[in-house]
Each structure stands twice: as structure tokens, then as C-alpha cells.
């Protein structure tokens, strides 16, 4: 079988049933290979940072591929729960059910991208990264014990900004020839 015939078969399959999970899973697969490769090729970053980033990007896509598939298939199965009018012909009901299944799969993929994959990544990636690259694990700092010494701190005497303040100031020697009695005039 030549390439054109193979391509034709793929096109026929996609034409009959193009599931919402096909493109997103394929993109995740190629991203899972290409993004870490490009990161490792970056010459401006440190080797350890490159390894860490590449592993993280790869893990994100590894989680994304089965999640897209599971969410898409699970929500598509919910389509069987829908009830249609009883007077509706059986072939129209079958057609609507098929339509609902496709649309529910699309909704499932959107929900996976919005909530499930980011949630799973934030829960699962950190422990896996710590296991694979323990050197990047942040070291826990020892808890400092509170100081229990109750001795009050000695207060330093405030320096007074006056002329005679302080111990080392030499006071002028003044000879007093007056008897220290009676009234003083002048204040010496």
C-alpha cells in the first residue's frame, strides 16, 4: 500500500469520526518530546536548571496525554444518559446521541485542560521532581528556639547635650575668696 492510499484511509477515518481527543493528544505527545529537547539545547541556562525544566515540561505532557483520553471518553459515555422525546424516530435519536457523544467528548477535553491537568500537575509533579532530582529540593531551615533569658537589658544613660555633662569634662577651677554666708551678688 503506497503513501497516498494510507493517507486516504486516515482521511476517511477522520472524516467519519474526528474525535476531540486526537489533536490534543497528538499535540501533547509532540510537545512532550520537542519542548524538553529545545530546553536542553538552550546554551544560556545552567545545566542543572535545564535538566530540571526539561523534566518538568516532559512530566506535564506525560500527565496530560492519559488525562485527555480519560476525560474525553468518560464524558462521552455520559451522552447515553440523555433522554429524547419518545415520539422521535429511532434513527434521529441515534443520530442525536452520536452528536451528543462527540460534543460531550469536546466538553470533557476542555474541562481536562481547564481543571484536571493543572490540578494533577500541581499535586503530582513536585513529589516526582523531588524524587528524581533531590538536590533541587529546598532544605528545611531549623526552627529557632525562642529566647528564654529574662534578665532585663541594661539601659545606657543618655548623653546630655549640655556644657557640663559627662564624666570626662574638666570643670574650671575657680578660687572663691568669699565667706560662704550672707547674700551673693553676681552668682559666682
Amino acid at each position: 500500500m503506497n503513501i497516498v492510499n494510507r493517507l486516504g484511509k486516515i482521511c476517511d477515518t477522520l472524516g467519519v469520526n474526528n474525535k476531540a481527543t486526537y489533536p490534543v493528544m497528538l499535540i501533547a505527545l509532540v510537545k512532550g518530546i520537542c519542548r524538553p529537547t529545545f530546553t536542553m539545547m538552550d546554551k544560556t541556562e545552567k545545566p542543572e536548571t535545564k535538566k530540571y525544566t526539561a523534566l518538568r515540561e516532559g512530566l506535564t505532557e506525560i500527565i496530560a496525554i492519559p488525562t485527555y483520553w480519560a476525560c474525553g471518553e468518560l464524558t462521552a459515555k455520559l451522552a447515553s444518559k440523555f433522554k429524547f422525546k419518545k415520539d422521535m424516530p429511532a434513527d434521529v435519536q441515534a443520530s442525536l446521541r452520536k452528536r451528543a457523544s462527540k460534543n460531550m467528548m469536546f466538553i470533557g477535553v476542555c474541562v481536562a485542560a481547564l481543571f484536571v491537568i493543572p490540578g494533577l500537575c500541581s499535586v503530582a509533579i513536585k513529589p516526582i521532581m523531588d524524587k528524581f532530582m533531590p538536590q533541587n529540593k529546598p532544605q528545611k531551615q531549623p526552627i529557632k528556639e525562642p529566647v528564654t533569658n529574662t534578665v532585663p537589658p541594661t539601659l545606657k544613660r543618655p548623653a546630655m547635650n549640655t556644657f557640663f555633662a559627662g564624666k570626662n569634662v574638666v570643670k574650671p577651677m575657680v578660687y572663691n575668696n568669699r565667706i560662704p554666708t550672707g547674700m551673693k551678688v553676681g552668682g559666682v
Partner: protein
Amino acid sequence: MIGMISRIVTSSPLTTMAESASTQVTCETTMKAIGRPGFILIDNNIDPDTKKYAAAKEFLYQATCLLLYAIFVVPLFKKGAFKVGKKIFKDHAADFAKFKNTEDYLRYRKYAEKPFYSDRIHNNKIDKLFNDELRTELKTKEHPRMFNRIKGTIELGNIIGSVLGLAVLAPQVSHAIIHPCLRAIGMEQKKPKTPKQQIDTKA
């Protein structure tokens, strides 16, 4: 309540969206652009500044992907696939010749997929939009031809374009765009250039 949900889930606009690979990828990337930064911001184990930086970086990456996809991938691959298919699949050349381009085929498919035959019979738009052959197909047959090969060709083109655009091209382009954008909004500082040591030629 279930009846209303059933009507929404089986509606034609949603079916058109769900069946097109380009719409699927656009919606998925938009959801990623909201979900991933959101989950980074609500993570309590990360330092607040790191959280803001990582969330902004992730949002910018997804926004770049979306922009690139809308500008480059959708117009080029969606339209290109129809032309390529016309040349490659010579055994289906007569089917391809019935339609002018991708839009023309997708318009036909939208009407052909309507589950109620009565929706097509009384539709005047069909008379204006399609040629005699396609009009007869839509108005006289309960199950008109779908031309699945054409639909598959368009979707395959979309998928190839999406993979090339989002997985190969987007990481390269975003690497060049993200850091200047982060610097512009004040979340990243420019690395100071280390002066080159001059070689002492006199020594």
C-alpha cells in the same frame, strides 16, 4: 432540566465546534491559558513573587501559542489542505471539484449533518449558497452524501498544522517574546552585561 441540557449538548453550533480540529485546539489552548496560571496562583507552597512570575510566564506562553495559531496555522493549513487534497487524491477529484474551497465544503457539511430532514427542505439559504447538484443532494435526500474524504483531508491538515505550530514553532517564538514582555511589565530585570576583559597585548 435534562431536556434543556440535551438540547444544548446536541446543538448545531456546538457540533460544528466539536468536529473541527482548529476549534478544538483553540478552545483547549484558551482553557490552558486560564487554568494553568490560575492553579499556579492558588498554590500555597510557592513564594508570592515566584507565583506571580510563573503565572505571568505561563499565561504569556499560552497567549503566544493562541496568537500564533490564529494568525499562522488556521489560515495556512486549513485552506492549504483542501488544495493539496485536490492534487493528491485523484480518485476523489470529482468530489473535490464540486466545492470551491474549504469554507464552501464546511458550509455544505453543516446542512448535511442536520438530523431533521425538514430543516433542509424549507431552508431558502441552500438555494442561494450551493450549485444544482449539491442543492439536489441536500433537498431531496434524507441522508445526503457527506464527502468524508474532503472532511478528513481538512482535519488532517488542521492536525498537522496544530502540531507543527504549537509543539515546534510556539516554544521558539515564545522564547523570543516572553522575556521582553516580562521586562516590560516589570516582572523581570535585564541581566547586566559583564564587561569583557581586555587582553593585555603589551605583556
